[in-house]
């Protein structure tokens, strides 16, 4: 039974139970209130039936409603016969509901016996007027007789008493229709009571924690056993009470498909609504507060965001647009993203409107960066819609959205890219909840960090301090081939610096797609804590998610990892994570333009060149090498480095080696091979959007990023690695390099993967479309392996796999599928289609490893 039906049954059973009493009251003491209440109930049932497609029920409710309407208008007197007819309708409704509950379909039957008398009452207009004029004394005789006719009464009575010979009108023999099984499974409880329960459970949890601590301290305690039992019961109770307040966010989304469908019908657009994380649970109070904002935002996306099909086609996009809703937990918050792949917000237009409306002066507006300009859409009454549609564009909406969300302590952000779409991110704190938290210490003070945002803990022993390196003053830790930016808790909190002569503990936290390490002095334990709101005097500090009381009665602050990370400006989303993230670069743009990706960049300056950047994720290490250590051999620079020779390549021309001493060197490594890029100065780490240039850009340049308002070139480390590699020589490989065909529609991934594969020693041909790839085979070109994109429709990739295999004689084993995010389903499909494996394309090392094993396997097979 679907939820809607279940809810309808529950609600109707409740309403009908009350109805009996009200109708009886009405008969005894006619009152407009009672009539209005009965009318409303009947009206609700009728309306819902129409929606759920229950014609029989609707018919009965409709007939009863008509009569009730006339009673309400005083066009019909309240008489016993009228009341009887209505009660009979109520009984019939119960019978049908009981049938619905047991069989999930409306029972067969005919309700003329119930509806005819009602219709007669409703239709007897002249009669009614006359009787109304004559007062209550004279009941409408003929009608009354009709309604009192024995057959219908018998039918209903038979059904109610569950007599064997139930007439066709009521085949739902199963039990007494008055008591509904579904209705008995749920109970409506006022939210106040739930809140009280929650508060009391919160106090109970704290008391339990205190008791646990006391008994733990006293090993001989007689209370150990019962306290343990109390502990278990409390945990169970807490969980159960929490559950009573939690609802999946899908409940708030249930209306949206219909909304989008109606908008499509009205506007002629094609929109697909995709929902992820519908099962994410949140407190019902919060759920209710975000329901309206959600509707506003989805409506906005559908109405303003998604373009009509012809416009989309013209822009090289599929005619059908997509609105994606995504909900997930993040570090003690719930994030809800509403993303569309529409036209994006016209920043110039917002800027202009903001000036027109006097929100900002023209000069100030010109200087504002795009993201600040976008914030104007939250101004009251702000709209850029050229024409106001029935749906939206009246400039109410986003300000209401923002107000509603901020009222519950949430934050709304908007991001938009022209032609690519808009993403609105709503972040709601979990202030009502009991959460699991890690208790950490810095100096003499303890803090709690919500477990949900913690990835792992890393201990760096005192003697391994050198593992922590610095990039222009920002500490980083090399953690499994990635640089983890570090934030010292004492620094963020403005506390005196902790002593250096001890082990460091790093709490690795996940914030969005980025990770960072929070350096703390000590980690105590994990505890269930009750999140208490933070006092208003310290609310603005924006580092804390709340406060809590520990088992020993101490108050401690709950740290907000996301706020700390943004405060420390330490979000170092490595290219790998941002590229692999859902929602990043969904769908490849037209082949002629580039692709945008957000990544963390290391900025440096060399020679006469302007500031350049390199993706931080590719940097292995930063060194300062005294010029005296640098050797020259065969016109190349070399340095003795960790027991091997490290080739040095100057970044840019005209770099005078001796000008800076010691010389900053950025070290890149690829497997066994490493090289150092010699620069003048290392400047900073920033996060920026990088525009990856289409193939044919300058060699060694991956793309450009706007950093501090200036275009900055992002260098391609693999180009330099290759330069160094050419000289170092290939790693013991002899013979012709193996040839790979890379089929990848996204420029970004092509440019990301091709150099890496070349650097790994393969000859790589990259193509964007299967047609172009097949054309190469047709021209007789030979390839040892094919790497094919699996995202752009698995079917296409499968067809290609089959064609290649059958027509051009490439073994199954030499086909590798590439996906942005590899799900088990992808794996299964890829293997079924004949691919040897499916690997995440953002993970370059995985791709190289994948192709190596594929080729190895193939060789072994020969």
């Amino acid at each position, binding site marked *: 039974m679907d939820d809607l039906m279940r809810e309808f049954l529950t609600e109707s059973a409740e309403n009908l139970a009350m109805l009996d009493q009200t109708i009886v009251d009405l008969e005894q003491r006619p009152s407009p209130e009672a009539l209005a209440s009965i009318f409303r109930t009947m009206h609700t049932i009728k309306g819902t039936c129409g929606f759920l497609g229950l014609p029989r029920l609707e018919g009965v409710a409709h007939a009863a409603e008509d009569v009730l309407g006339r009673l309400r208008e005083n066009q019909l007197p309240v008489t016993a016969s009228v009341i009887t007819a209505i009660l009979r309708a109520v009984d019939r409704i119960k019978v049908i509901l009981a049938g619905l509950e047991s069989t999930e379909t409306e029972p067969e039957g005919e309700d003329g016996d119930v509806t005819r008398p009602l219709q007669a009452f409703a239709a007897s207009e002249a009669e009614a007027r006359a009787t109304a004029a004559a007062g209550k004394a004279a009941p409408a005789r003929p009608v009354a007789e009709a309604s009192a006719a024995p057959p219908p009464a018998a039918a209903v009575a038979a059904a109610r008493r569950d007599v064997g010979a139930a007439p066709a009108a009521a085949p739902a023999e199963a039990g007494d229709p008055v008591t509904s099984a579904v209705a008995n499974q749920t109970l409506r409880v006022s939210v106040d009571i739930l809140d009280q329960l929650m508060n009391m459970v919160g*106090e109970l949890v*704290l008391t339990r924690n205190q008791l646990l601590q006391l008994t733990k301290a006293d090993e001989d305690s007689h209370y150990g056993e019962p306290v343990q039992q109390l502990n278990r019961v409390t945990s169970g109770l807490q969980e159960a009470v929490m559950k009573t307040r939690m609802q999946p966010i899908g409940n708030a989304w249930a209306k949206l498909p219909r909304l989008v469908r109606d908008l499509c019908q009205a506007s002629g657009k094609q929109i697909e609504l995709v929902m992820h994380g519908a099962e994410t649970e949140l407190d019902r109070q919060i759920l209710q507060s975000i329901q309206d904002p959600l509707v506003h935002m989805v409506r906005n996306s559908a109405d303003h965001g998604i373009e009509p099909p012809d416009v989309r086609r013209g822009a090289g996009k599929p005619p059908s647009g997509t609105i994606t809703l995504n909900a997930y937990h993040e570090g003690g918050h719930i994030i809800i993203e509403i993303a569309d792949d529409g036209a994006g917000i016209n920043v110039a237009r917002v800027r202009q409107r903001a000036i027109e409306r006097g929100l900002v002066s023209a000069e100030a507006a010109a200087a504002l960066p795009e993201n600040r300009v976008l914030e104007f859409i939250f101004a009251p009454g702000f709209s850029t819609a050229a024409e106001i549609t029935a749906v939206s564009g009246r400039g109410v909406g986003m300000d209401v959205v923002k107000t509603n969300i901020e009222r519950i302590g949430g934050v709304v952000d908007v991001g938009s890219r022209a032609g690519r779409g808009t993403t609105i991110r709503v972040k709601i704190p979990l202030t009502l909840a009991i959460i699991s938290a890690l208790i950490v210490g810095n100096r003499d*003070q303890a803090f709690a960090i919500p477990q949900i945002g913690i990835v792992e803990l890393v201990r760096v022993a005192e003697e391994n301090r050198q593992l922590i390196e610095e990039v222009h003053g920002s500490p980083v830790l090399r953690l499994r081939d990635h640089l983890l930016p570090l934030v010292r808790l004492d620094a963020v*909190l*403005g*506390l005196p610096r902790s002593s250096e002569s001890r082990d460091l503990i790093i709490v690795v936290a996940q914030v969005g797609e980025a990770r960072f390490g929070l350096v703390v002095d000590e980690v105590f334990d994990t505890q269930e804590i009750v999140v*208490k709101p933070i*006092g*208003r*005097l*310290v609310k603005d*500090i924006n*580092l*804390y998610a709340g*406060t809590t*009381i520990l088992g020993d*009665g*101490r*108050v*401690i*602050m709950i740290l907000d990892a996301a706020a700390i990370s943004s405060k420390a400006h330490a979000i170092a989303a490595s290219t790998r994570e941002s590229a692999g993230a859902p929602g990043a670069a969904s769908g490849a743009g037209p082949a002629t333009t580039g692709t945008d990706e957000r990544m963390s960049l290391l900025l440096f300056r060399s020679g006469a060149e302007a500031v350049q950047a390199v993706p931080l994720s590719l940097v292995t290490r930063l060194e300062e090498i005294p010029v005296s250590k640098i050797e020259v051999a065969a016109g190349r620079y070399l340095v003795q480095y960790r027991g091997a020779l490290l080739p040095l390549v100057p970044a840019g021309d005209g770099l005078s080696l001796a000008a800076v001493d010691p010389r900053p060197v950025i070290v890149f490594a690829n497997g066994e091979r490493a090289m150092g890029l010699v620069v003048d100065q290392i400047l900073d780490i920033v996060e920026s959007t990088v525009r990856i240039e289409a193939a044919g850009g300058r060699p060694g340049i991956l793309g450009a990023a706007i950093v501090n308002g200036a275009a900055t070139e992002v260098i391609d480390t693999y180009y330099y690695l290759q330069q160094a590699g050419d000289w170092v020589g290939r790693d013991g490989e002899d013979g012709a390099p193996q040839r790979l065909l890379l089929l990848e529609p996204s420029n970004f991934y092509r440019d990301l993967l091709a150099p890496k594969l070349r650097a790994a020693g393969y000859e790589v041909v990259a193509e964007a479309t299967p047609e172009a790839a097949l054309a190469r085979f047709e021209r007789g070109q030979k390839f040892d392996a094919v790497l094919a994109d699996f995202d752009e429709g698995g079917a296409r990739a499968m067809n290609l796999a089959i064609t290649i295999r059958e027509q051009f004689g490439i073994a199954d084993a030499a086909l590798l599928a590439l996906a942005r995010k590899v799900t088990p389903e992808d794996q299964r499909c890829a293997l079924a289609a004949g691919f040897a494996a499916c690997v995440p394309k953002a993970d370059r090392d995985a791709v190289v490893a994948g192709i190596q094993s594929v080729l190895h396997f193939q060789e072994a097979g020969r």
Partner: protein
Amino acid sequence: MSEAKEARSGEFISFRVGGQLLGMPVQMVQEVLTAQRITRVPMAPPEVAGFLNLRGQIVTAVDLRARLDLPPRDDGRESLNVVARDQEELFSLLVDEVGDVIEVSADIFELPPPTLSERWRGVCEGVYRLKDELLVSINFPALLTLH
């Protein structure tokens, strides 16, 4: 006038900070506590001493000396807590010592002297002329408005 007179008469709880006698109507005060364990809140304004746990409820402790521009206490003794509620939130004023409940009347009330420093004037309702000394009536909500 009589209304104001009534508001300015009644029982005041008196406490001392940096030698000055201060007071607020006794019905506003929930309770007085001895020294409590207070959790400092890094990055908080200097007037916020931290949080304390009062039977499971979180109380924001306000350092009255800091709030009134007085130097930190140097007699090595611990501060007492005067706990009061404002807008559904509990606050504690950290004071040097708590005195008697004093019956005051509007007859001995005066508006704050105009020469009072701006910070004091912002939180001072007025002054009562007691027999031996002056009692400054503080405006509790104003005290909680930090700048």
